[in-house]
């Protein structure tokens, strides 16, 4: 055991829910200001932070002002805690672009919740964060409260090293409100991992200057190009940060995690809490001798297309389970996977299952139904399928 790991092993196990884990992540990362506006199911994050006497807690008058205020904090080089969900995140949209464009390394926690489309909804659905696909924010998805805490710490490190903001997302209620054992790092060690905030590159450490003004098209174009390349380069930044995290705390993370993929003929790809369900279904099938595997996606931006194909490209069939929907296109993760398959000329047949919208339960039996459907079909499947307890629908 390395001395770092021995140091990092001084962790306290506590039974907490995902919202508390997220709040603890911000505290351990050294956030000194917390900005929020009440929204379900995020508010427990801020309730936890508001009890911390070392954090200046601000309840703004809308999420729009939460992010504008947090941006102001970030301009000064301080770390800020921001968390929201659903309507709150889409209300922030305009400022989301600005924060990323200004290359401010904010970290935001989001507990995914269905947006108000046909009606109000409180359950888990990833459309809120995925709507931010093109803003330049990094996006990480979590399966457990432990991952929420750990990814907040890793996200600060990655965001500050890459000068890009990052979302750490988890399914609302399934993750925000369910209690599990979480190993909480020692505060000093956590802070040592995240690192001192290096302010030399911050705008307000530069000794004066104006930012955010009118930018002529050639300069604007180059700035956008640089953002694009920097997002793609985050994979390397993440790998280095995650390696140090594993060294310090004994938990290893990657942009994706494959299970039983080496000999799998069918691979199920998913992100978020549904991964636990998929894992259960895959293990059941494995026990019956089926060559089934899975890939859990931790990252949506950067999208680990190459790693995905390296892990699952040998399978004849790939299923993507999406707890989200872009009407007219289908599952959003599936669209990314489809693009990666095409780009890397992978011959696997893709099955896109949209399921669990609005927080509807996804059971292992449902995943098995999807696998049975794939096993019975040998033609080209419809672009999008909907998976319910009653079965598969087009």
């Amino acid at each position, binding site marked *: 055991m390395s001395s770092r790991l021995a140091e990092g092993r001084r962790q306290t196990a506590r039974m907490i829910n995902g919202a508390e884990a997220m709040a603890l992540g911000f505290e351990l990362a050294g956030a000194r200001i917390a900005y929020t*506006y*009440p929204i379900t199911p995020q508010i427990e994050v801020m309730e936890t932070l*508001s*009890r911390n006497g070392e954090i200046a807690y601000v309840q703004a*008058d809308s999420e729009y002002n939460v992010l504008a205020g947090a941006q102001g904090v970030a301009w000064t080089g301080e770390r800020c805690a921001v968390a929201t969900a659903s*309507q709150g995140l889409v209300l922030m949209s305009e400022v989301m672009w600005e924060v990323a464009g200004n290359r401010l390394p904010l970290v935001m926690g989001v507990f995914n919740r269905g947006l108000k489309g046909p009606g109000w909804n409180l359950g888990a659905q990833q459309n809120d964060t995925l709507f931010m696909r093109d803003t330049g924010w990094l996006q990480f998805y979590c399966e457990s409260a432990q991952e929420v805490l750990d990814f907040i710490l890793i996200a600060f490190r990655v965001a500050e090293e890459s000068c890009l903001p990052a979302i750490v997302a988890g399914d609302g209620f399934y993750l925000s409100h369910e209690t599990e054992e979480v190993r909480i790092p020692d505060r000093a060690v956590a802070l040592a991992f995240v690192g001192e905030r290096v302010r030399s590159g911050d705008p307000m450490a530069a000794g004066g200057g104006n930012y955010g003004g009118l930018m002529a098209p050639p300069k604007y174009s180059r700035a956008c190009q640089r953002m694009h390349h920097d997002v793609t380069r985050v994979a390397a930044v993440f790998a280095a940060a995650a390696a140090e995290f594993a060294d310090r705390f004994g938990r290893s993370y990657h942009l994706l995690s494959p299970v039983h993929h080496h000999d799998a003929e069918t691979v199920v790809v998913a992100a978020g809490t549904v991964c636990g369900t998929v894992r259960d279904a895959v293990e059941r099938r494995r026990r019956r001798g089926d060559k089934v595997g899975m890939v859990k996606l931790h990252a949506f931006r950067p999208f680990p297309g190459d790693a995905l194909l390296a892990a699952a490209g040998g399978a004849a069939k790939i299923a993507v389970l999406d707890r989200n929907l872009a009407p007219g296109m289908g599952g959003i993760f599936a669209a990314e996977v489809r693009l990666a398959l095409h780009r890397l000329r992978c011959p696997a047949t893709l099955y896109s299952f949209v399921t669990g919208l609005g927080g509807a339960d996804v059971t292992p039996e449902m995943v098995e139904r999807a696998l049975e459907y794939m096993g019975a079909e040998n033609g080209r499947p419809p672009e999008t399928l909907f998976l319910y307890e009653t079965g598969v629908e087009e």
Partner: protein
Amino acid sequence: MTDTATAVRKASDYKSENKPTWCPGCGDFGVLSALFKAFAQLDLDPKKIVIVSGIGCSGRLPEFAAGYGLHGVHGRTLPTAMGVKLANPELTVVAVGGDGDGFAIGGGHVPHAVRRNVDITYIVMDNEVYGLTKGQPSPTTPQGMAAVKRSPSMPKMAPRGVPEMPLNMLAMVLAYGGSFIARGFSSLPNQLVDILVQGIRHPGFSFVQALSPCITFYDTYDLWKGVVEQLPADWNPQDRVRAFDLALNEEKFHLGLWHRRDRPPLHEVLGAAHDVPAPERRAALERVMDAFA
């Protein structure tokens, strides 16, 4: 807007089949009941009533009423209500929401709806707390709130006391040029009915602050019963300066019609567009299109 061709309606005619989901004892029941009674007094055709809401416990109100209800997103109550009224001035448009929806997340819309004098009745069901999200301080929560025993949930979010001073919605609406400004209390339903009847009749933006306690997260029933008071007997609603003076200095909640003045509602100012018969509007549009043909 009164439909005299039918028999006089009862308050129960305005109920929908949906039972209110508010906590038993919520002040919003009193506001809903008063609104139904006001509709009945005015004998409004339910099919010509549109109730628009945003988010919050009070935002559920349209579901419980017959007629048309639009439950919108956080804070956008007033623009949606304004759009409905401008498109069809024949409708009675009522906007409902809480102190958070109206004066925090939707606060930017209030001055503009008021200054435009959109002919809608806006009922702010003020409970001085965010109830739906389980008890955070709102823009009207008293400063320092945390130590008060009647607020068991408030320390969750403001353990050191609410740091900001509350905003003064009556003074704000007076400053914006409100043409009808009143305050009622859900526990005094007869007066609230009277205020709502006057407000709906008023041709312009009618602002009604309806004190409506949250029994679960910030129970102010007893406190407010002790601090509500009627406006003085010699009160003149035309006297805006006196209204301002009271709004800025009152130590109690004064109930009644605070201020009223005549200003043309927006749809009348913009009337030209509505006054042109539809066929002529189409002909005018075709002439414009022809110019680009």
